[in-house]
């Protein structure tokens, strides 16, 4: 290690200590940062969100019993991602789309072989043969059950892309059809926007949950949330697979 490395390590430690000091020991009223456990939540805006359940305002929610709550998803993270803050999610998948498009613009030639030059060993190929359908199925399961269990479109799409990455690692000549990827991606993006516009037409605000939310905890529930999450899953899976394919075949 050279002197420069020690110097930068020292500077990073000093900077981290300063930041830690600024937030840990501070009890000023000007910053409104208090010691852990001494915050009076009644003064904060967040108390309204803590008191208000994601699904209903007053009555308790009973699993597989309550009918038509506000947003019928039993995984409340999904409620926020695909319903309350769905516009943010639209922005996120747009960012991912722009990243994939930029990569394809720089590296997009699909007529070369992959980076490794040869097939993987027999053991890897057999393992991939077994793992690929299982991983693909797991990805679809995570996407489809996004409103019931942890996970959803982003995670499931990434699992599907990982399954395709395994195929690329095992076989030298494996190619993805980029036309199919483009069609899937465009279909998912346009359907997302159309669902949002239907909400705008029927209920007066973009991406409102305009369908009936059903019984909480059942598979067919939560209105548009599973539809939007499946579309996100298709889009993320197609985009990440395209990124991997462009990187390996460039």
């Amino acid at each position, binding site marked *: 290690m050279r002197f420069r490395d020690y110097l930068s390590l020292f500077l990073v430690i000093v900077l981290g200590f300063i930041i830690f000091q600024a937030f840990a020991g501070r009890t000023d009223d000007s910053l409104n940062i208090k010691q852990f456990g001494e915050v009076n939540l009644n003064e904060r805006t967040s108390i309204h969100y803590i008191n208000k359940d994601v699904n209903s305002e007053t009555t308790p929610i009973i699993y597989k019993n309550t009918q038509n709550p506000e947003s019928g998803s039993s995984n409340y993270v999904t409620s926020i991602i695909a319903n309350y803050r769905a516009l943010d999610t639209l922005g996120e998948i747009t960012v991912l789309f722009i990243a994939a498009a930029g990569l394809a613009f720089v590296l997009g030639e699909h007529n070369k072989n992959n980076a490794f030059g040869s097939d993987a060993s027999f053991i890897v190929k057999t393992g991939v043969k077994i793992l690929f359908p299982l991983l693909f199925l797991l990805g679809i399961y995570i996407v489809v059950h996004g409103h019931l269990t942890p*996970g959803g479109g982003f995670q499931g799409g990434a699992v599907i892309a990982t399954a395709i990455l395994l195929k690329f690692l095992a076989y030298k000549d494996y190619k993805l059809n980029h036309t199919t990827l483009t069609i899937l991606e465009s279909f998912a993006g346009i359907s997302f926007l159309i669902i949002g516009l239907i909400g705008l037409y029927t209920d007066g605000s973009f991406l409102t949950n305009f369908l009936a939310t059903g019984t909480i905890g059942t598979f067919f529930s939560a209105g548009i949330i599973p539809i939007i999450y499946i579309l996100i899953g298709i889009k993320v899976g197609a985009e990440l697979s395209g990124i991997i394919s462009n990187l390996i075949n460039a």
Partner: protein
Amino acid sequence: MMILSYLLILLMIIGALAAVLFENLLNSIISLGLISLIAAALMYILKAPDVAMTEAIIGAGLTTSIFIFTLIKINRGDSQ
């Protein structure tokens, strides 16, 4: 559970230092994947399974592989 958290955080700091200090870039990338994997375990301990899944799949799986492919592309697999 508290001791396990401290242990994981210590491992994370070691991984971060290793990622910076390794001469070989491939080792640095693998250390980065290790950091993401430990972060996923910490997220699970903090009762955020959604974030833990994202971190484990994207941080430890996809990002590591994309970095490695980029490394192959720019022909800098050997140490500088």
